[in-house]
């Protein structure tokens, strides 16, 4: 029997090595696999390259990983958010490298890695500073630059439901980078709100087929807080969230 469920987030991130490239799903807080990141922090791997749209919010999740000095390099599109003070400090102090990639090129480069594409011509970024050093070509009268795939050793993502074959569905805009990251990493681990029976996810509605997923970890019901302050919200079953602090 195939069983990709993993007992704990700690077990799921056990094998991540120093120097790894780790993709972390999420757009802001939506879809950020906080429990897996916490487990990675506890696990201790360092000298990491992190691929994620943002560079952490507040002092938790990815920001906490950054604060521990575990990250050598960030590949992301938007590290500057109102609550990204951890990254800001490291960057200004010269303690972290940054590869800035337009968001759509980031998503497409990750998809390319997952789909075996060696490179692609994109119109995004043409004529800008972010095209410096990149090959440019005019195709059918339009200017494009050549971008290359971004692959990873590990992807840590967050989904809504998963089964023991690793099939995943997401919830609303928390889907974001999860599906492409799952396809682009040697090992993909998904934290999910619910592990369900095989067959409970409608085959027509599977978003990430299990072929892309190596581990599925159930995590406790989520809370939505901002710097420790409850900012509203309902949980995945529609119940109001409790104030946690």
């Amino acid at each position, binding site marked *: 029997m195939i069983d990709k469920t993993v007992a704990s987030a700690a077990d799921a991130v056990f094998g991540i090595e120093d120097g790894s490239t780790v993709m972390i799903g999420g*757009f802001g807080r939506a*879809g950020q696999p906080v429990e897996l990141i916490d487990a990675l922090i506890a696990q201790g791997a360092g000298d990491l390259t992190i691929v994620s749209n943002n560079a952490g919010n507040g002092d938790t999740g990815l920001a906490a990983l950054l604060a521990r000095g575990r990250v050598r390099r960030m590949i992301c*599109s938007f590290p*500057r958010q109102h609550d990204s003070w951890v990254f800001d400090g490291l960057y200004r102090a010269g303690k972290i490298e940054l590869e800035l990639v337009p968001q759509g090129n980031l998503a497409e480069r990750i998809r390319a890695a997952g789909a075996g594409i060696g490179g692609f011509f994109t119109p995004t970024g043409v004529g800008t500073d972010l095209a410096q050093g990149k090959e440019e070509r005019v195709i059918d009268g339009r200017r494009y630059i050549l971008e290359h795939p971004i692959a990873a050793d590990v992807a840590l993502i967050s989904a809504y439901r998963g089964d023991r074959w690793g099939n995943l569905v997401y919830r*609303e805009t928390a889907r974001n980078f999860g599906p492409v990251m799952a396809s682009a990493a040697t090992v993909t681990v998904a934290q999910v709100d619910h592990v369900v029976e095989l067959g409970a996810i409608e085959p027509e509605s599977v978003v990430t087929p299990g072929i892309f997923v190596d581990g599925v970890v159930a995590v406790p019901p989520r809370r939505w807080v901002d710097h420790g302050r409850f900012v509203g919200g309902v949980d995945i079953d529609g119940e109001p969230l409790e104030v946690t602090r």
Partner: protein
Amino acid sequence: MTGLGRVELAQRIARDIPEGAYVNLGIGAPTLVADHLPDGLEIILHTENGLLGMGRAPEPGAVDPDLINAGKQPVTALPGAAYFHHADSFGMMRGGHLDVCVLGAFQVSSSGDLANWSTGAPGAIPAVGGAMDLAIGAKSVWVMTDLLARDGTSKLVSECTYPLTGVACVSRVYTDRAVFDVMPDGFRVRELLGGATVAELESLTALTLRDRP
């Protein structure tokens, strides 16, 4: 001459969006346009983080942490909405499927170049997000901005001095003083707002402006 306020400008832009249009409102001021779309017209809003059919902000008690817009603010989804992943979402943009996107700007050049992602200031944290994808992605790229920056300089320029977001991509600029079309030979005044005159606009921008046809 008194410029239009942000809300009035958002209302003005909203009037130019036809029923059935697929529209991305970026982040920041342009998102105000959503609140002024005509009631009863179906206009479908796209947000880069994977949603078509975005609705208004939720009631305070109904905020859902998984349902946000590009600015990471809570939103809702309309009946008929669809969720998709990031590669699909930006494929929609890059593939030219959006009818309109509305973006902010530091500068717009007379050839339609857009600068809106970086002031190039040393020490600033660079961040581009979806700006470059949006700039080249929609059938019509509109800019919503004050005509003048806080230091009084014109945001309409002959050539951008700030780092570019996209080349020759802007087709129309909605400012507090006038609406401009970007034509092959430069800016053309489409509509005067708040009592401005073409002469005043030329004085403020130091540009030669074509007037309405």
